[in-house]
């Protein structure tokens, strides 16, 4: 196996990417911010910051707060809106030979539909990741992804309007994520990505005020990995479509855990802040592992978790 590089291509629901490592939405901007620091052409794919129909200013500061082995964020989905994204952000991304998956969110099903249509028309994105962790303002603010029927409806409506592979990104802030996963599979999702952040908070004890202006925020980073991994493992067993693992992945070992329990690919998020080259180290590390285990193809590793296996 010495001189032959392992095959790293994976199929994430109709889109074949060169390796299973992608950057997570909200952690990599629109590619330009990180381009000076790593070779972004080596990435399996880039997932953009969430795009909405209209521009969104996002939350008032303070928006971030560090926590043990992690951080809370309440950015508030600040973005320039789909029209500005297409005009100003997409052209730079297209200069690199790396698949761009546009992350989309909305406050109503109509928003999701409009953004889906506009992005599909450009023929310049390779896939859509639908963020259903936002509130449905038409239904009293219930999170789309917390209700199986709403999750199903968003998936179905989006799929109707596009030929692009549609990945549904799940929120873990639910009672049973497998129910939601089954719903979106039923709605026609080509793949599922999980997890989005876990809702948390932090208090300034001297001033007795929240550390975040929004009070609550999303927890990410190494602290959430065990939860993310458990949820990925559970969802993989319940659906047939590819599952993409997200949550606290900081190094190749972390990524391998997710692949072993059945994730077809992974997204790296918060780790980019600590090490701009985290994704490069992870890609290299996966290759090294495969060589060491005499595996010619990363797909030979995916889902090989032995639940009953004992350590000694």
């Amino acid at each position, binding site marked *: 196996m010495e001189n032959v590089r392992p095959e790293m291509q994976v199929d994430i629901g109709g889109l074949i990417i060169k390796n299973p490592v992608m950057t997570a939405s*909200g*952690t*990599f*901007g629109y590619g330009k*911010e*990180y381009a000076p*620091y790593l070779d972004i052409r080596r990435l399996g794919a880039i997932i953009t*910051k969430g795009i909405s129909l209209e*521009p*969104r*200013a*996002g939350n*008032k*500061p*303070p*928006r*971030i*707060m*560090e926590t*043990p*082995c*992690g*951080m809370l*964020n309440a*950015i508030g989905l*600040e973005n*320039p809106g789909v029209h500005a994204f297409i005009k100003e952000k997409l052209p730079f991304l297209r200069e690199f030979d790396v698949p761009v998956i546009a992350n989309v969110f909305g406050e109503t099903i109509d928003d999701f539909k409009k953004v889906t249509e506009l992005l599909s028309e450009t023929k310049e994105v390779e896939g859509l990741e639908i963020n259903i962790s936002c509130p449905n303002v038409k239904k009293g603010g219930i999170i789309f992804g917390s209700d199986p029927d709403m999750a199903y409806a968003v998936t179905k409506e989006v799929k109707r309007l596009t030929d692009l592979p549609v990945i549904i990104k799940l929120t873990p802030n639910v009672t049973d994520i497998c129910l939601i996963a089954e719903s979106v599979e039923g709605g026609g999702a080509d793949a599922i990505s999980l997890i989005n952040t876990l809702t948390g908070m932090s208090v300034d004890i001297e001033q007795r005020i929240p550390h975040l202006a929004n009070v609550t925020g999303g927890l990410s*980073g*190494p602290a959430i990995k065990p939860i993310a991994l458990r949820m990925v493992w559970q969802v993989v067993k319940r659906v047939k479509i590819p599952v993409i693992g997200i949550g606290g992945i*900081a190094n190749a070992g972390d990524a391998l855990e997710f692949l072993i329990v059945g994730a077809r690919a992974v997204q790296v998020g*918060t780790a*980019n*802040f*600590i*090490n*701009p080259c985290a994704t490069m180290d992870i890609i290299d590390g996966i290759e090294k592992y495969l060589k060491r285990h005499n595996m010619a193809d990363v797909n030979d590793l995916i889902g090989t978790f032995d639940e009953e296996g004992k350590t000694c």
Partner: protein
Amino acid sequence: MNGTVVKNKEICAGHFLLSVKLPESFKTPMPGQFVMTRETGRIDPLLGRPFGVYHFEKSENEATVKILYKVVGKGTLLLSRLREGDFVEVLGPYGRAFDVYPEAGRVVFICGGIGVAPITYLASHYRRLTGARNVKLVCYYGANKAENLVGIEKIKDICSEVFISTDDGSAGFHGLITARFSEDISSYDPGSSKIYACGPRSMLKQLSELLAENSVSCQILMEERMACGVGACLGCTVLLNDVEGIGAHARACTDGPVFNIRDIRWG
């Protein structure tokens, strides 16, 4: 980039000077830029801490960056325990640098507390740029007490006039540095003076009020909690004046940390 601690010296209680050896390829920071620093291999605390550059030099084989810092929380406490030979990651230099005016008649620096650190780097830069012309470099430096006036010797070396203040009156003017500065403010002609300031938010806010009726140019450094340092995460938001909506949100790490004092919404 991976760096090695050369020295991490306690200058006075809670204030340290960290010297890190870096590869020669590390880009020379411009005054106002910052570096994200963290102990190699740690995931707790998770995030790098942003520090303005205090000193930087390059030789044929290596570069050295110096950071003058105060212990204010978990990250800086752990940083203060690093010893010679320990590994640190230094990312950067990041951020928008100060606009520098070699033709200025007088350059005024205003520092509050550890804000003296990046201002010193800027002042050294000005001294090199204008040495031949003997431009007047003036520094106003305030701290809560005399022993916390760290780096005062270096500032006195660079600037032709240095005015000190302490909150407790143990040295110099008894009171805030903005109060001391306000005594001289009318002598600074907007046509030829440039002001630079770095310090606690309350100091910068007071300075903006002092300068409200004055058109003299004033650039400041804004400090915010940061995660990525490169403009991707949108965590380090600074609110701007006279704009609403998405345009009112600037990133301290990329649109700053240097800002025009009049552009900030102080709230």
